[in-house]
């Protein structure tokens, strides 16, 4: 399978701090790819570099064969990259349906004067947007809340609304920054089911997550970061057995103890 996203030698410094140091990895089309690592490993910075929210210092970001490293944020959305945020970013006063309709922005083309005159093409487009938004809300299980204020939804519902808003532009890659954060096991299981259905629709997923049970269950490939560097890359089973990963998570001594063959107790 071909790589939908290829990141090469990406680096980013904040004044003296090196947040991302020469990270390279590829995300294959149609997979669920996890980006893990201890706090401060540079995962969110990497997401911000890919979506264009912070300018990079060096390296390449190739999406679907095109170098997007220097394209503005909104243009990347237009090419098919959507994302959610670690701290949910809602359009608080909008209705739930409008929020998803706003997410469909890159695909809409009715010119301004059509809107001013209420011409048929504009009205047809608005009807199609509303119908598609309602379909997406059904897909994420929020259809009956369509007319409520987005800011009034419960936490877990806002997370799902953010995913629906991201999907509204029909992206090819969806970046999810800690989608399961703050969720109970039941909600996390629901989220895993939802994300599998998203992938089944042909959307590639790249996610940052701390809930290892969730990550191991849903991801087909993992990239592990520590102190801004890539320390491992592979299937969940490979990564779990990697000494460098165990060391990063548990510390050198614990890693050494785990790697020693078990001695029979006297």
């Amino acid at each position, binding site marked *: 399978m071909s790589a939908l996203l290829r990141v090469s030698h990406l680096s980013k410094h904040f004044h003296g701090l090196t947040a991302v140091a020469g990270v390279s990895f590829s995300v294959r089309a149609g997979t669920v790819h996890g980006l893990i690592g201890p706090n401060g490993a540079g995962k969110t910075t990497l997401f911000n570099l890919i979506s264009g929210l912070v300018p990079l210092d060096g390296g390449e970001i190739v999406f679907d064969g095109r170098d997007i490293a220097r394209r503005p*944020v909104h243009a990347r959305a237009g090419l098919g990259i959507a994302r959610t*945020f670690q701290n949910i970013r809602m*359009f608080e*006063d909008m209705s739930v349906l409008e929020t998803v309709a706003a997410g469909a922005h890159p695909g809409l083309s009715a010119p301004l004067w059509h809107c001013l005159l209420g011409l048929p093409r504009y009205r047809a487009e*608005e009807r199609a947007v*509303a119908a598609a938004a309602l379909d997406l809300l059904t897909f994420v299980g929020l259809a009956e809340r369509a007319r409520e204020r987005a800011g009034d939804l419960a936490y877990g519902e806002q997370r799902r609304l953010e995913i629906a808003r991201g999907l509204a532009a029909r992206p090819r890659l969806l970046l999810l920054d800690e989608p399961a954060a703050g969720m109970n096991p039941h909600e996390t299981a629901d989220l895993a089911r939802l994300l599998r259905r998203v992938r089944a629709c042909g959307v590639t997923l790249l996610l940052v997550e701390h809930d290892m049970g969730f990550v191991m269950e849903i991801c087909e490939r993992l990239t592990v970061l520590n102190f801004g560097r890539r320390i491992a890359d592979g299937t969940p089973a490979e990564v779990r057995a990697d000494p460098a990963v165990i060391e990063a998570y548990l510390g050198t001594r614990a890693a050494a103890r785990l790697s020693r063959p078990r001695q029979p107790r006297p």
Partner: protein
Amino acid sequence: MPLWLEDFLWTYQTLIHSLGINGLLALSMYVVLAVGQLSLGQAAFMGLGAYTGALLSLHTGLPFALVLAASALVPALAALLIGLPTLRLTGVYLAIATIGLGEVLRVVYVNAGITGGALGLGGIPDRTEGWIILALLAAALAGCVLIGRSRFGRAMEAMRSDQTAAAVIGINLPAYHLGALLVSAALAGLAGALSAHSSTFIGPNEYAFETAVTILSFAILGGTGSPLGPVAGALVLTALPELLRPLHDFRGVFNGLIIVLVVLFLPRGLVPWRMPRLGKTP
């Protein structure tokens, strides 16, 4: 027309003109606030429109419609000039940059010969009518509502609500910022030209900081959830001094008191409702 109405319209002609002109200024403020920006250059754009209109009427034989069009175009060009380098500015920084524009223009009006210097321009032909002003206000208001309900309005509200999330869903923030500033400058310029032809006299100090703050207060008092808010704010703030006339010397005190009370107890303004779009919120 019944005699009492004719009488009323004649007596309150100036007030009716002011209501319409201030309504247009309030809308020009709304357009900028609607994309989450703060401009204090509305008075400067108004002044540019007023001087452009006055000079064209005094020195050329252009029909009034063309004079008005030019008075909207010139401030829009100025907005393009100030907008391009300041696109990356937001919040108070844009406000400060636009205050600067007002001050620069005031100095130009005072010192340039053609603008009549500190004495201003007098004898501007009285070419406007109440119905022209009110029709333009109605058209601008309808335009704001129609655009506001469309995908452009959704994008604008998204930007105002969360710039980062708006950019990530594919909204071209700089383009919307610049577009809003151009439309806003054109509306303010139109209002300026109408006021110049209504009062027949303009001076360089009419378009200074104080006017900019007054225009901002229309929007704050009225609320910025929909374009109706700022227009309502302008109507109240324009009519209030007239309604309070029986209070004589205490007029200013009560005028100020009412503004303070509204801001304190109606933080979302006189018209707190937001514009209904897809899927109305209850």
